[in-house]
């Protein structure tokens, strides 16, 4: 009887697992939503606790220091306004030239700030959750970046949150361009599970002449990432497959281990 009860429980657990695993994709994502919503109060508490020291520090800041900060921000704002005027003039000129040659007009990027809510607890995925969802206009495959560079892409979207696959995850490969005279293009993929700051750049031509320190940006090929988003810098390169191709290691500009806020880009 004792053993029978044990095997009954084992069978029940296996049955539940089999049922859940065999659910269709829509039901599975709904179940994921329901289960993850059980954690919402905890996330709310964690968020409040995270902001408490900052709020206390804000309250304790002396008035003089705040006024100095406001003044320096005003100066920076004025400088940025002048730069914006210059950029607008360049944009107008660019549009005129593009229309002269009948080229397609470039649309300006729109960015939305998102907070990183949580990280994947499993060691074999590199994903994060952000606090923007379909109600904020998010959809799948939008690029996600920080001010330093590309971070990943939106994988799945719910009403108030979205899952972002980070660079280095096997499900996030990016067509990247090295800013050298030859404009070599390769595919950026994971270099291993330990170091999240290094990625492999592969499928480069055999005669690619890469040097450490060269900038790597998105190539615009593939239809997901617009051209020109900074990714990182070349660390080293080596000839592969008897000189048929070249592989390189790229150090990411963005620190994926310390993501706190990210920008979602609407191209």
């Amino acid at each position, binding site marked *: 009887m004792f*053993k029978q009860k044990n095997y009954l429980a084992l069978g029940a*657990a296996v049955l539940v697992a089999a049922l859940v695993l065999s659910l269709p994709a829509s039901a599975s994502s709904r179940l994921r939503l329901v*289960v*993850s919503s059980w954690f919402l109060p*905890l996330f709310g508490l964690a968020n409040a606790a995270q902001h408490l020291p900052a709020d206390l520090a804000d309250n304790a800041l002396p008035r003089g220091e705040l006024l100095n900060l406001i003044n320096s921000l005003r100066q920076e704002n004025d400088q940025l306004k002048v730069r914006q005027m210059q950029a607008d003039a360049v944009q107008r000129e660019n549009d005129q030239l593009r229309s002269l040659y009948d080229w397609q007009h470039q649309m300006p990027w729109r960015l939305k700030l998102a907070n990183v809510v949580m990280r994947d607890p499993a*060691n*074999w995925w590199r994903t994060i959750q952000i606090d923007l969802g379909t109600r904020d206009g998010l959809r799948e495959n939008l690029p996600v970046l920080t001010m330093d560079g590309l971070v990943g892409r939106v994988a799945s979207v719910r009403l108030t949150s979205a899952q972002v696959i980070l660079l280095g995850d096997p499900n996030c490969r990016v067509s990247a361009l090295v800013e050298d005279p030859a404009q070599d293009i390769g595919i950026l993929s994971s270099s291993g599970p330990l170091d999240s700051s290094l990625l492999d750049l592969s499928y480069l031509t055999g005669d690619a002449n890469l040097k450490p320190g060269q900038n790597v940006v998105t190539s615009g090929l593939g239809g997901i990432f617009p051209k020109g988003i900074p990714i990182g810098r070349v660390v080293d390169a080596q000839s592969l497959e008897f000189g048929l191709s070249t592989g390189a290691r790229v150090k990411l500009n963005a620190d994926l281990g310390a993501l706190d806020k990210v920008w979602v880009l609407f191209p």
Partner: protein
Amino acid sequence: MKPLQTLLILAFGFLVVFAETVLPGPRNLLGAQIDLLPGLMVYAALNSDIWTVMLLAITGGLGFDALSANPPGISIIPLMLAGFLIHLRHDLILRSLPFAQFMLGAAASALVPALVLILLLNGGKQPLIGWGSLWQWLVITAGGALATPVIFAFFGWCDRTLGYPEIKEPSFRPDREILRDRNKL
């Protein structure tokens, strides 16, 4: 089944999964996130009944999968298997010894992620694995092993605080009383 104990174990399971998602410290320091669910499963398997083990495997596994990119439900079987194997021999294991807790925590922490990875690969998924995964596996195993005696100590404290106090037999026995008065004999 002790309802309070089961409730505590399940609640602790939720807290553990939540903590793993918001505390990236171990991952940034050691290169791997330590999973405390297998250690908790060892405690449940040794100190509770099989139904609590089953509930922990289902709720803990589902919670972990819901917050990660795993397919929902894939962690249930490895967790249940670890708990089941320990529970089958729970009468023969010296559960109060920290060394036994450490070794069982290490075994469960090593078994669960390995089984999840095998299931993922069999399901046609592409998890991020390489030679560095061996280091991650060692970190997870060692972290789980070290955490298991702590989990036992925590639940021991909970038992003492929330449970009924143990009734101790008094040393006084009336039938052994020596009566000194001659007249009463």
